[in-house]
């Protein structure tokens, strides 16, 4: 296409092509594509990666038509609340319909990253057989497949560089899937099978690690013993991320010193995880690498404060820490005093159904006192106070992600018995960069008023068992212009609240409302006003007629779902 003489500012196509090839940020690409038709075309031909954050917002045909040169796809499916069993089985998000289109449109597809998708063994086999240059597969929180599907992947993907399986509902049929990796495969860089329960062939694993010289990430499962771990680390000292196996069985074929020595050779290691069944006996083996660690995931290790202190005094560079609440407030004091550079903290409950004290407001305060750079927190606790959260906000005004889960629904400030409104008010008033907020505890509409008035950068909002009236939701829907994803459960918000968000829904990714006061009439009204939204009601067996127990609303250019199961009704 020659530059049109009537448009002196038109740039040569070749120039556009080369320039756009250098742009990696999807956000920049999206903006650039809106400038003019030439730029739109240059962008779409040069794009190699596409991220579809709601698989029903667009169809695979539309994607393939617009972007002919894709090599890497990220695809997310089910609403996040499916992680907590709120979405029925067989709801959808099946990857097969995407693979079928991609097989024709993107035969050179190299990477596929799926989150909350339904993936069958047949689909994995289909993937392995139809994409000959396929390199990287990442499955996060997916379900529907078994180790048989994994066999297919490792057998047929001759150029495999990445196999990353995280937190999936895998039907672990055991078997020897790892042994199916061909002898001549040496390209593996990332291998994560920590979430699998069954034993893999250690010989196959050892041989694989030994011949894949570019292996950087290795996360093994609980069936790998310390002895085996030592052998693996000795073969791969260039690892940057390691997930250990179980520390339960004692070392047999080597000594603690030898294991420690193996660790000490891993000079590039910056991320550690695993640690199942670890005790003080073997913790010291990781001391040599602690100084370089930036991310330490101890969230499967039932450690106490003393063990935690042992490690943390040596982890001066730590940026991200995940722990179980078994460390208690004392353990969190250690965090505050040992890790001044900490940016992210996640504290998970070891026994969510046991109301024994895990961590409290005191631990939260300790961390905030010692870690002013903290910007991401996920904190599960049994009790909290408004005063403590207000102080935390003062200490750490840089919060971008604030997820506080007081585990008893509707729990007030345990000292004053007041609602927790002021706590979240303090957060939104003090932290201008807040993008993600999860609230809990007893909350009146006032909390939501604070959020609507102050959280102007809020993108993701999760709320449960809170609010007093429709006003609550209205405050947020009207006050927060950058909302992308809103999830609400068990709140007294009805049709008026639902409809108050009319102006927002087309610029949002999705809204989930369950166990609220929304009716099918209200949903129908919304659906009629906004034809470019899918307003889906998930029918509940025992539910009353007229009430919409679970509602999932999202923008789409693909029209109503064609694969909806009978219990999903699009209005």
């Amino acid at each position, binding site marked *: 296409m020659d530059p049109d003489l009537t448009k002196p500012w038109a740039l040569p196509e070749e120039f556009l092509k080369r320039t756009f090839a250098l742009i990696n940020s999807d956000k920049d690409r999206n903006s650039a594509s809106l400038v003019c038709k030439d730029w739109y075309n240059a962008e779409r031909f040069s794009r190699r990666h596409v991220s579809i954050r709601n698989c029903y917002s667009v169809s695979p045909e539309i994607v393939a038509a617009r972007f002919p040169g894709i090599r890497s796809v990220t695809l997310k499916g089910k609403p996040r609340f499916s992680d907590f069993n709120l979405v029925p089985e067989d709801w959808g998000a099946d990857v097969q319909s995407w693979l079928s289109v991609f097989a024709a449109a993107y035969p050179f597809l190299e990477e596929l990253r799926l989150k909350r998708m339904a993936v069958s063994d047949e689909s994995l086999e289909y993937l392995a057989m139809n994409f000959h240059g396929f390199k990287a597969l990442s499955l996060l929180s997916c379900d529907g497949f078994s180790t048989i599907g994994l066999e297919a992947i490792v057998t047929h993907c001759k150029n495999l560089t990445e196999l990353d399986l995280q937190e999936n509902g895998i039907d672990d049929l055991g078997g020897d899937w790892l042994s199916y990796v061909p002898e001549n495969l040496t390209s593996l860089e990332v291998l994560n099978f920590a979430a699998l329960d069954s034993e893999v062939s250690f010989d196959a694993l050892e041989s694989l690690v030994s011949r894949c010289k570019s292996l950087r990430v290795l996360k093994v499962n609980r069936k790998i013993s310390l002895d085996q771990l030592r052998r693996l680390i000795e073969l791969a000292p260039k690892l940057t991320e390691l997930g250990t196996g179980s520390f339960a069985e004692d070392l047999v074929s080597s000594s603690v010193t030898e294991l420690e020595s193996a660790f000490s050779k891993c000079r590039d290691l910056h991320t550690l995880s695993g640690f199942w069944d670890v005790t003080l006996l073997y913790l010291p083996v990781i001391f040599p690498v602690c100084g370089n660690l930036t991310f330490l995931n101890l969230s499967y290790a039932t450690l106490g404060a003393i063990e935690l202190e042992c490690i943390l005094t040596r982890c001066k560079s730590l940026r991200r820490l995940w722990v179980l609440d078994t460390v208690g407030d004392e353990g969190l004091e250690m965090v505050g005093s040992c890790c001044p550079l900490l940016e992210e903290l996640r504290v998970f409950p070891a026994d969510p159904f046991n109301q024994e004290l895990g961590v409290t407001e005191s631990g939260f305060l300790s961390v905030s006192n010692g870690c002013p750079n903290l910007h991401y927190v996920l904190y599960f606790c049994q009790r909290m106070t408004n005063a403590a959260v207000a102080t935390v906000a003062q200490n750490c005004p840089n919060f971008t992600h604030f997820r506080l889960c007081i585990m008893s629904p*509707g729990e007030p400030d345990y000292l004053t018995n007041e609602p927790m409104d002021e706590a979240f008010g303090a957060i939104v008033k003090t932290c201008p960069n807040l993008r993600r907020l999860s609230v809990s505890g007893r909350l009146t509409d006032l909390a939501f008023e604070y959020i609507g008035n102050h959280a102007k950068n809020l993108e993701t909002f999760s709320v449960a068992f809170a609010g007093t009236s429709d006003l609550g939701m209205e405050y947020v829907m009207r006050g927060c212009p950058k909302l992308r994803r809103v999830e609400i459960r*068990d709140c007294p918000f009805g049709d008026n609240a639902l409809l108050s968000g009319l102006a927002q829904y087309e610029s949002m990714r999705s809204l989930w409302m369950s166990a609220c*006061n929304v009716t099918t009439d209200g949903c129908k009204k919304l659906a009629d006003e906004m034809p470019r939204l899918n307003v889906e009601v998930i029918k509940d067996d025992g539910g009353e007629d007229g009430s919409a127990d679970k509602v999932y609303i999202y923008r789409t250019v693909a029209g109503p779902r064609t694969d909806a199961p009978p219990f999903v009704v699009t209005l």
Partner: protein
Amino acid sequence: METTFRLSGGGGGDGGDYGDDDELELGLGLSLTSAAYAPSSNGALSQVVGWPPVKTYRMNSLVNQAKFSKNEEEKGVGGNDGSKKKKKNSNKNDEKMVKETGHSGFVKVNMDGLPIGRKVDLNAHDCYETLAQALEIMFLKASSSIRREKQQHSRLLDGSSEFVLTYEDKEGDWMLVGDVPWRMFLGTVKRLRIMKTSDANGLAPRYQEKNQKPKSKQLELRR
């Protein structure tokens, strides 16, 4: 737990989705839906689906952890304050351990379609009816159960639900719950499973033919 919030308080007239009758029935002024959270003797959190919001994968992992801590303790590993503390934790977990001897106590319950298993204390029941009703509250929608308060028989036992309650006995056979005397059941049950009625057709109430055993095990795997 005191609750003072009301449904769509000042929000407007159309808050009448849940009529007064329902409020009276529940007595606490909670909406039908939040009554999914119903305080029980042990403090209650276990009644609510998907709360607290911990990923199912992590929950399953924790169940396995607790089991392991118990074994750890038996091995006598460690000897300083740190591991003593951990032993203390596992002592508490012991009370909720999966009992594998078949004696009454906590047994694991799985339901087809749910990756998370739960535990139920058989000691807390003296007949099949209360056990089945407790399981209905735990696994099926709580709101449905509340409507069924007035019913005599649990749907899990009378065959009218799409699910049936089954158990694995000491011999490893899967049987339908309800046919042997309660005490005998307590002595032989290892774990429970809420199975889809369609999958349970191979199970006979009074006996399990040996050649059917592998089939039901396969059914489990193919879930």
